[in-house]
């Protein structure tokens, strides 16, 4: 039988992942409900909301968060859904990708699945248990969010809308659960699965960004574009939910088919014989570390360029939008001497800076993965000092951060200069972008510190990054206590060109980072280098 002992395995899976699931549930439900209440308190009059709606309608916002709808009657619900739904859906996708990979390919790679398979367990039981578990988790979190929103009893957020809001998130999670299950049949390593799945996520986002601004068809091809078509709280369409579920079912079936066919431990992408000798390149710690992360590094560099470029491509529309919208121009416009385009640029800069921090942190944290797999031993017992090991990873991370940020800005400038009548100068853009480097360094410092000091808790650095993103992003929209925003390193950087450049916060950030790094180097030398 293919499915023997699914139920037992399901319980086993629950037992192993209950902590992670609980953390995801609490943070996702908590953030959504808190944000909803923050939104409703914010704009007292319809008029205020209406002017907000007008700013939100511009192409840069559409590219970033999806198309606005119900703008002629921009209720709290419509506003909340417009500004939060896409990003929350992305977090659901990330959660599903990470959980599924951990339960499928990672287990297989570590040989745990082999042990399970030697027991009287069906060939498809393990994959089934995984899919069922992550599906249930997605449904539970989605429903809790829906119920939470209903329970808050907020104006403009009705019952149907709230449930649909939650379920929209659920189906996004399901789509990525099934695609990750499928990819984990293809790639032999768990890093490969995570990499490919994130690539799908990023392509889905970019496709939707371009599609939402210029072509509805493109958007519908992206799962993220598709789920936004529910127009939660305004039209409450249900068809995108069903279409997404249908697609997930198809992917799941393919995943099961492949899982049944292939050998344990094998992928479908075969590995060929390789080189007999190490090339000169490989034969240094730097070469080795770079080589091991080659694919990650190259993919992120490409992704960052395209992310910048897709934001940049809407600048032409953005310019036209502001020119035609005189009311808005008067309200917010040129009185400070900066065009609206420039003001939106500052926001894009933060987003790009936070995105560029991801590859940097990812590349650094690889050292933790290596340690867990017992492979830092190879270097540490061959004349590489701990200082040198951690410094190599850190320097590669910093360089990748700089390159990513640079390319994102270059992409933004390149695409925008094609479409704008008065292009932004590259130098100004670059100045604004690179000012965020100290903020990025601080996040890296936190990663290094956690690795050196409390290695088991290194994933917390991602929490900090997500937190930074939401405070910076929401900080522009809702009244947030300044100390909450101040916890994020990114909120201290002067937003060029709207703000004046100011060395003080930059120097302070650099100082804190340096102190943290020195402390980390010392504590890494003191601890056991065990996984």
């Amino acid at each position: 039988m293919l499915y023997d002992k699914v139920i037992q395995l399901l319980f086993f899976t629950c037992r192993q992942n209950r902590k992670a699931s609980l953390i995801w549930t609490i943070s996702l439900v908590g953030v959504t409900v808190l944000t909803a209440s923050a939104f409703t308190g914010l704009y007292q009059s319809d008029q205020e909301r209406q002017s907000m709606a007008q700013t939100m309608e511009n192409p840069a916002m559409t590219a970033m968060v999806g198309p606005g709808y119900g703008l002629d009657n921009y209720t709290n619900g419509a506003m909340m859904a417009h500004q939060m739904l896409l990003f929350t859906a992305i977090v659901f996708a990330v959660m599903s990708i990470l959980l599924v990979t951990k339960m499928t390919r990672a287990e297989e790679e570590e040989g745990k699945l082999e042990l399970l398979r030697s027991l009287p367990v069906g060939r498809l039981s393990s994959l089934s248990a995984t899919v069922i578990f992550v599906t249930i988790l997605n449904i539970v979190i989605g429903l809790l969010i829906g119920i939470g929103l209903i329970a808050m009893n907020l104006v403009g957020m009705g019952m149907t809308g709230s449930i649909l809001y939650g379920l929209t998130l659920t189906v996004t999670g399901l789509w990525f659960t099934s695609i990750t299950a499928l990819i984990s049949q293809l790639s032999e390593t768990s890093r490969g699965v995570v990499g490919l799945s994130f690539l799908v996520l990023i392509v889905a986002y970019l496709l939707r960004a371009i599609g939402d601004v210029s072509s509805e068809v493109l958007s519908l091809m992206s799962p993220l574009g598709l789920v936004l078509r529910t127009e939660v709280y305004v039209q409450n369409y249900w068809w995108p939910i069903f279409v997404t579920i249908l697609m997930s079912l198809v992917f799941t079936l393919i995943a099961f088919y492949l899982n049944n066919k292939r050998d344990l431990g094998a992928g479908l992408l075969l590995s060929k014989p390789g080189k007999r000798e190490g090339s000169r390149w490989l034969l240094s710690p730097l070469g080795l570390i770079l080589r091991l992360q080659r694919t990650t590094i190259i993919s992120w560099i490409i992704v960052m360029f395209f992310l910048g470029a897709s934001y940049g491509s809407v600048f032409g529309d953005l310019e036209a939008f502001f020119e035609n919208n005189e009311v808005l121009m008067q309200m917010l416009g040129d009185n400070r001497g900066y065009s609206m385009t420039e003001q939106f640029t500052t926001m894009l800069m933060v987003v790009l800076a936070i995105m560029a921090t991801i590859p940097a942190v990812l590349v650094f944290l690889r050292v933790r993965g290596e340690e867990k797999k017992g492979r830092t031993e190879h270097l540490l017992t061959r004349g590489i000092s701990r200082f040198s090991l951690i410094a190599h990873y850190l320097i590669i991370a910093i360089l990748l951060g700089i390159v990513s940020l640079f390319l994102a800005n270059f992409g933004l400038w390149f695409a925008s200069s094609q479409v704008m009548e008065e292009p932004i100068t590259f130098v100004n853009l670059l100045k604004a972008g690179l000012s965020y480097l100290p903020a990025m360094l601080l996040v890296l410092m936190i990663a290094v510190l956690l690795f050196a000091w409390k290695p088991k808790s290194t994933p917390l650095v991602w929490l900090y990054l997500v937190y930074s993103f939401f405070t910076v992003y929401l900080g522009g929209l809702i009244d947030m206590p300044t100390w909450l925003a101040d916890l994020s390193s990114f909120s201290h950087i002067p937003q060029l060109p709207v703000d004046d450049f100011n060395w003080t916060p930059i120097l302070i950030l650099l100082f804190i980072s340096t102190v943290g790094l020195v402390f980390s180097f010392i504590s890494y030398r003191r601890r056991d280098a065990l996984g």
Partner: protein
Amino acid sequence: MNRIEINKVSKKFGSFQALNNVEFEVREGEVYGFIGPNGAGKSTTIRILLGIIQATSGHATIFGKDVWKDAVEIHRKVAYVPGDVHLWENLTGGEVIDTFLSLKGQLNKTKRDHLIDLFQLDPKKKAGTYSKGNRQKIALISAFASESELFILDEPTSGLDPLMEKVFQQCVEEVKKQGKSVLLSSHILSEVEKLCDRIGIIRKGEMIESGTLDDLRHLTRTNIRVETEKSASILGDVPGVHHLFLDKGVYSFQVDTERLSEVMKELSQLGIKSIESNPPTLEDLFMRHYHSEDQLNKG
């Protein structure tokens, strides 16, 4: 001079005492066997020697240098083979070996190719597709192809076939001839018996024996099979004789090695028709320690 010196080293993982005052030394040009049951603390000791984990108390040196503080300097002349070899899936075996050797700054292609031949490794395969034994070969080739003075080998042959085990033994003998030292942790007693000059036994984090095989033999029993003219059942009452059996006129028993001459005196009076004596094997030695533990547990 001693290559490795371990002085009252203890290690605690939280409240668990993994090592308790471990002491031994490995001399120049010597192969030291390190044996003990699973979970006894062999790998923990080795990791401390490599500076991967830090001893809670005590002091250990390699080449007279502190294993924790001077780890990097020490490692230039130490080769390590872990029991569980984890490699990077997407590099080929050849790439891994070259990388390891150049990290130590000692890429000698002739020596490397010779060893690859000797161990019959296909270096073009991706490390992710190697079998356990083949991964171990990669670690062994990287170790023996390097210019090290000290080899620390943690169960290096647990995945090798008998043919490859022979090759491994040749390699160890080769480096020993060159005056290099080897610390060999192993469960394969015949291998330890064949290769090692001195042996240390660890159990539950404590060293219980250390010395040459001959030294240790004195602590244990010799197996004797004898046919006598008169009945030898009185032997049962002689102190130092254990497990006396009579089978088709042949007596077999064990004698505490330090009592051997007294027992022989008794035997000669009974008229020996034939006698066969076997020196205690390491296995006997090992089993005896297991045994006494069992008895302790029961008692």
